[in-house]
């Protein structure tokens, strides 16, 4: 789904309305975590060929951060959720 994104709040919208940030990295480490853990979080990526979870911001619409599960080979998106659900586990 790289031409259109089905925003869970706004429905089908064109890529032009979104800003992509990139891979959903490891969760933001705790304040006290080692520098190496932070380095991993800030810099290292799985960057897989296939299913990929990534942040898209609906900057031209509802301004919510979304997480897309999208295939980097086929560009098919299997899931779009509000990014806040990553942490809360519930609906946004």
């Amino acid at each position, binding site marked *: 789904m790289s031409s*259109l994104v089905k925003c869970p709040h706004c429905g089908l919208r064109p890529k032009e309305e979104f*800003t992509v940030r990139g891979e959903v990295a490891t969760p933001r480490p705790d304040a006290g975590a080692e*520098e190496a853990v932070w380095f991993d*979080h*800030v810099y290292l990526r799985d960057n897989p060929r296939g299913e990929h979870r990534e942040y898209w*911001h609906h900057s031209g619409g509802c301004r919510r*951060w979304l997480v897309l599960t999208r295939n980097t080979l*086929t560009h098919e998106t299997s899931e779009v959720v509000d990014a806040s659900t990553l942490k809360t586990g519930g609906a*946004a």
Partner: protein
Amino acid sequence: MTSFRIDGGTLIDRNDVRRFSFNGEALSGFGGDTVASALLANGRQLVGRSFKYHRPRGILTAGAAEPNALLTIGRDGRRDPNTRATMAELFDGLEARSQNCWPNVKFDIGAANGLLGPLLGAGFYYKTFMWPAAFWEKFYEPLIRKAAGLGRASYDPDPGYYEKCWAHCDLLVIGAGPAGLAAALTAGRAGARVIIADEGAQLGGGLLAEGSPIGGKPADAVLADIVGELHALPNVEIKKRTTVFAAYDDQVFAAVERVQKHLPEGEINPHRAMERLWRIVARQVVLATGAEERPIVFGGNDRPGVMMAGAMRTYLNAYGVAPGKRVALFANNNQAYQTAMDLEARGIDVAAIIDPRTCPNIRYEGKARMIAGAMVRDTAGRKAIKSITVRHDDGRDEVIAVDALGVSGGYSPIVHLACHRGGKPVWSDEHVGFMPPENTDGMTPCGAVAGKIGIVDCFAAGGAAAVKALAELGVMGEAATLPGVTQGDATVDHVQPVWSVSSTKGKAFVDFQNDVAVSDITLAMREGYDHVELAKRYTTNGMATDQGKTSNVNAIGILAENKGASPGEIGTTTFRPFYTPVSFGALVGASKGMEFQPVRKSPLHGWAERNGAKFVETGLWYRSSWFPKNGETFWRDSVDREVNTVRTKVGICDVSTLGKVEIFGADAAEFLNRVYCNAFLKLPIGKARYGIMLREDGFVYDDGTTSCLGENHYFMTTTTALAAGVLTHLEFCAQVLWPELDVRLASATDQWAQMAIAGPKSRDVLSKIIDEDLSNEAFPFLAAREVSMFGGRLKGRLFRISFSGELAYEIAVPAGYGDSVADAIMTAGEEFGIAPYGTEALGVMRIEKGHVTHAEINGTVTPADLGMGKMVSAKKDDFIGRVMNLREGLVDPNRPSLVGIKPKSASDKFATGSHILNPGDAVSLANDQGYVTSMCHSPTLGHAIGLALVKNGPSRHGEEVVIWNGLAGTTVTGILCDPAFVDPENEKLHA
């Protein structure tokens, strides 16, 4: 020149005579003609010259695949180079010219290249032009480049208007031939939202060229019935002259509609688009793009007069144009026999039908000689075909005089759109062609693109495809019944692949436009470029403007034949967008010139204009940069005066473009404390604080002030440049990192007109319009709160902050009142000598004060680099960027850090972007000490000053350095110093 126009022609209107010129010669045609049909009707078969050898070329096709007949149409800003004559509709006054020939198409000096043929084989340039080395640049390359290209583009601006649209449908039918029409009718009757698009000026595709009745009715009447019904269905949108040129992810299809390209200049509506880009979102697609008839590769197969057999039929039946007086056909399939019958029916002499098949299974009752098991080996003639040489199955050659040859080497399904999303076409021995990929999710190929031949089969296939596509949408449909073909439909028979004729003597072309001959492909193989992609890249086969529509499959066949493999094993090169070339104009739409990007205007824009501002683009904004007065003509005169006015009296500056964010919520303070590197938890109500925001990688992102306006209510300002970025970053923090915090963000940039009032008299001015006590005690430095103005008639927000270093305030009022309030401040300040100042003066004053902007905050600096290391909280256990900011490379004492810099001699000047060297050091990157980030002339100090990032900068105040500007060829001796040139003790701020 004799006329080749004969009777009939379903597309032309003989009452509508249209005059046009070809290479300056006045000719005429009819409404409905293409330029190609009109040229043929006038007996003009020689229309252009080929790319490399400048061989004479004629019209090969009647459609989008045309490789030869590329003309330049129109003049000045309306000049279209490389236009396919077969697609360009004739209009009155059209001007067409041949390309790539000098002095003219009939006598072209460049044709001498043909004599060098053996030297100019595939890849010849890779092997030569290397000696002597200097000759390449000076001699060989200019020569090659001069020869490059086909048409000449205009440098004049295009007066046309263009636009882009979105469209939505349940079913997109691509192609309005028999299959597409049946599909559209089926889906239309079922009530689905249908878009049917076709590149032609009229719907019909193959039906337009059909000379025989269908189900007892003339083909054009059948077509008229179908089109009539489609027009009557409100849920069917018909797009003629619309080429669907690319398929993108998620069923988004790009199409270009040639809205007014077929109109003479006088009839063009300037408010309507010349071309319109359609972005079609389709739930399901029926692909009915048809098939391309393939040429056969034999000696002299490029001679004018050699034409596709199907194209001949189109010219004959749709345009009433005879392809010649005495025609031969060379075909390995049965379709061409239909052409022969149609030619004969119109009294055109068909000399022979040469068929490589030994016993073609064909019901042909015409007069022409059928020569089975034979091939056309070569052709003769200079600028037009005079004869063909036929090699019989017994090895005997026979010369037959003809003035036209129709060729058909089988059919290549037009699978492009099915392959744009990565699908690979599949070879079919049965169809002798590459078929659409098996898995075309959401797209149903039907008709000729799926290997069907004949109108009746295509009608049926289209209906069935639509039923299938509708079922995917949960809609029941019934395939539209259309008339069957009762007579004249040539029976379908096997196609015998003929990739190239082996006994050929003359140059046999595979790719007409790029002049790729069989010998080039075999040479590429000999040299190891035998992969289909390497062969393409080495020979340039398929890389011309037609992208190999008529050449690719033959090239693959030749590769296969020579490798002893099947074409399927060789595979195709990748089908990539666009199907046919698309103008920049269509893709740009209205976003051109001053409308390239929208303009953002401050609410004080009008006020600034009235005060004579000069504006400068800052991102999308226009900001006032200075305000010339009293005949000031040099910008510095104005800027110096503005600075002096602020430093000694008072000035007013529009700062509305700063990003502004309202922050609410029970956890707003905690949130701010985490996004800024300095402490924010205890900011009292009514106070503003300067803050630095880091990125998670520890470098400075942006700076600004945030004020606490009430319990759980903050107001943040960001820099103009990063307003959008900061808001997005804050949203990321609030929504992704800490959704558990109660924090709500609202952009308020546009709500407020915000003005900086700066200078020793600023309090006096503001006191005249603000109802409240502004004394230092009542409203000290960094106070921030809502204030009543004009006797309670207006509320605003007042902040005592200063970028200039003077006693200063920023006042924000609802945007609509900005204009009036700015006027009021000007009036109030008149007695104090107030003047508006712009971003230039603002910049000078911040440099004088040593304040940083994005000239210094360039994404690679830490707070410590900017002399603000102490602001980074050591107490907070978490904020964005805390840990990465501590990395070895970010605390390296050798990092370039902020210093002031001034010339040793007050009269010396230097430029931003100059580098710093130690005196006596050699000029080298290794000796680079840093660079000047900002500079200005300081009217306060009377000489140039600057800020710089210099290794160990802060410990080097007073040191002499070299300010090196190699670009300008200047060196200036400078002295490093404290970056605060003016009022380092901050006395003015607190006054």
